[in-house]
């Protein structure tokens, strides 16, 4: 045909030119820079904090910030994993209360509150983690095996687990915890609280696993396009099981650390945390649409929220206003990450 001869000649001239996707001669992909978007924000807040109150940059204060965020940071870690595979787990905050709650219920001696005193104190940690795993298995069973909507399943689970904790504790707080339960919340390793080390170590592991292992990359593949992931030979259901169960176990561990630090398990332990967790994850660049975001970003997200809170406290903002300001911070932080990230958030 005559027209193809004509168009062949022009076709080459208008071939699309590749877009600029890297800096420094291709050594740093632009996509990677987005992970660092929150670092300048944290630095700015730190400088403001130092100007507001010189206490801010003292080691004690920084350790305090890191310790108070370490438990909720583990929830962020868990939620980030679940979000990357395009699922949601609202029940994490209840798991954080119930898992150590059940352990305390079985271990705390009778006479002191609602304890049953059935098991020796050494069982507390295994029981806590087992409860976490069990919750994860039930969630995974309902979501993956039976194909129920993950949002509603975990919403139901959130309410059920909270109710179970209120039931076994009679709405009261468990005291007189065994020393094994107190250890993680109180121990000092190399001059810093153990919970900080655990939190940092787990994030480091998560960064490596999600960035540099086939298993970790399969999370992104599943969240990005589950059919394509299947076609590439990834066992998607197995990966989802692992992610959901691991998430719940992490929540149980976070609960253990919090109980240890407070030397008690309140029936409302973890209540309301999930909103901060979601906010931190999204601010940190984890997409609710799945397949996007890094663990480093998620860590920056929760760190930013806690640093701002700390600065407000140091600035002498009345405690009654902290709640309103927390919400405002989340909105502002989201707006900042929209500007620095440059993309519409899903």
């Amino acid at each position, binding site marked *: 045909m005559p027209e193809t001869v*004509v*168009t062949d000649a022009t*076709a080459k001239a*208008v071939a699309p030119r590749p877009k600029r996707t890297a800096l420094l001669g291709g050594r740093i992909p632009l996509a990677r820079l987005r992970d660092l978007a929150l670092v300048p924000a944290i630095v700015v807040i730190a400088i403001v904090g130092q100007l507001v109150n010189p206490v801010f940059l003292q080691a004690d204060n920084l350790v305090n910030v890191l310790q108070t965020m370490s438990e909720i940071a583990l929830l962020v870690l868990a939620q980030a994993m679940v979000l990357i595979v395009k699922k949601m787990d609202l029940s994490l905050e209840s798991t954080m209360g119930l898992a150590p709650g059940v352990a305390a219920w079985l271990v705390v001696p009778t006479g002191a509150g609602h304890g049953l005193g059935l098991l020796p104190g050494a069982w507390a940690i295994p029981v806590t983690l087992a409860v976490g795993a069990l919750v994860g298995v039930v969630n995974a069973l309902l979501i993956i095996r039976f194909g129920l909507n993950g949002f509603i399943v975990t919403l139901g689970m959130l309410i059920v687990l909270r109710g179970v904790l209120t039931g076994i504790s009679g709405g009261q707080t468990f005291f007189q915890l065994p020393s094994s339960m107190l250890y993680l919340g109180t121990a000092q390793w190399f001059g810093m609280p153990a919970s900080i080390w655990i939190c940092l170590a787990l994030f480091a592991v998560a960064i490596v696993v999600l960035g540099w292992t086939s298993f970790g*990359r399969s999370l*992104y*593949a599943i969240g990005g396009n589950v059919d*394509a992931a299947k*076609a590439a030979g990834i066992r998607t259901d197995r990966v989802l099981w692992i992610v959901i169960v691991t998430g719940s176990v992490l929540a149980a561990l976070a609960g253990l650390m919090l109980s240890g630090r407070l030397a008690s398990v309140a029936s409302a332990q973890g209540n309301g945390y999930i909103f901060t967790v979601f906010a931190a994850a999204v601010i940190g660049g984890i997409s609710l649409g799945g397949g996007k975001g890094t663990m480093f970003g998620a860590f920056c997200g929760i760190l930013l929220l806690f640093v701002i809170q700390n600065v407000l406290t140091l600035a002498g903002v009345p405690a009654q206003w902290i709640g309103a300001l927390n919400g405002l911070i989340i909105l502002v932080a989201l707006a900042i990450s929209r500007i620095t990230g440059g993309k519409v958030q899903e």
Partner: protein
Amino acid sequence: MSDGERTVTPEPAPADDGRAPSGTPVVEATGLVKRFGPTVALNGARITIRPGETHALVGRNGAGKSTLVSVLTGLQAPDEGTVTFGGSPAPRLADRDAWRERVACVYQKSTIIPTLTVAENLFLNRHDHGRGRLISWPAVRRRAQELLSAWSVDVDPQTPAGELSVEQRQFVEIARALSFGARFIILDEPTAQLDGSAINRLFDRIRGLQRQGVTFLFISHHLQEVYEICDMVTVFRDARHIVTAPVAELPRTELVAAMTGEAAADRLRARPSTLDRTATPALSVRALGGDGTYGDVTFQVGAGEIVGLAGAAGSGRTEVAETVVGLRTAAAGEVRIAGRRPRPGSVPAALAAGAGFVPQDRHHQGLVPEMSVADNTTLSVPRRLGRNGFLSRDRRDRLAGSMIEKLAIKTPGPGLPVSALSGGNQQKVVMARALADDPKLLVLINPTAGVDVRSKEFLLGKVEETARTGAGVLIASDELDDLRMCDRVLVMFQGRVTSEIARGWHDHDLVAAMEGVDLHA
């Protein structure tokens, strides 16, 4: 039409390919039967594809092409029949790796992961591992770069795959298929979302790979493409094999007859002009300009006139059409629809002024897939369905029913979700909505993309009918068949209207104008 296979003359060996096409076909499927409940998707179908050829598979929607593809790629087992690759039987369904070494399919629906980079998509789940079993990203990138340059795909492996154009994505998917060792590739309607020059680049690529010994099965609704790129053609109709013949020996009319089971009407029949010069023009566009994509566009569409707006992708034709109906806001100039000037950038205003339109991509802008046919056809005319914002189901179903009849939409009833319809019928639903309010101006953007031959003729026939009732029609498309019935065709090139061609043009004149080439210079 004889229901037999014609004599197949063996292909001469390509000069620069060591592999002579031997007697063993790359793929041979015989006696395939596949049932889905009461529906028979394949009924004794067969196909034989020889090494090095580009084999076309054509048939109307529902002829069994997709089912054949999923059987040939090992996604589904046939109920009866056998598939062999190079003479040996097909691997077990669970053995995905073995399938991937034999055959790959580039689907219309993307199988890449948009959030990951090109390099990672290429080597997903088979990354290079360095020290300590961790992924070595430099090695992955290097291997991706090698792979892409080995098959001369000009894409940066570091680009997020979501930023690729459709064309680049197809090349990446082809490269990935080749990296598994497959030398037989199925292309499922690869040209559906490409513009003219991208199609030509794809065809160049196919020819190049063919010379390197890659065999293709090419599925397309565009018969012109079959004649351009393919050596052999197999026609399926109603789940059966109808004919296999060398393309050169099967004239177009016979091919269409094999597909439809009846002789097709001559597409080039003359259409009397229905332009009414006395009435207010249906559309008048003056000095229209948009943010860099087009500028200084001036034209009129008279009442009863059909005007084509042709141009390659990126020429601005789609943008101009979208501006007319208010999907975009113009930076300069004005749009008048039937004498009124609707508020720029407002679709409701354009509709109120008397416009009806078929958007570019029915999947994105045309349909709400889970809503019923009735809801979809009446989506733009809520005020005809009841008063004070309350909808009457009765009225809706009556209005929808009349439109289903008018456009011969094949559906068991107005309550069926529109996603259950075939491509051609979905497009009819979009068209029905455009016509729901008896528009004075009908704007169509790529109205027959991904639609089978018969539905296409039907849709274009409806357009003519609409013009006869005195409405003006603007067709923005680069599909020659869409433009053939236009009273005149305006050609856009790089954002400007460069020429106007009266009816009776030759294909090569129009294509040359769209590509910005002057044949008579």
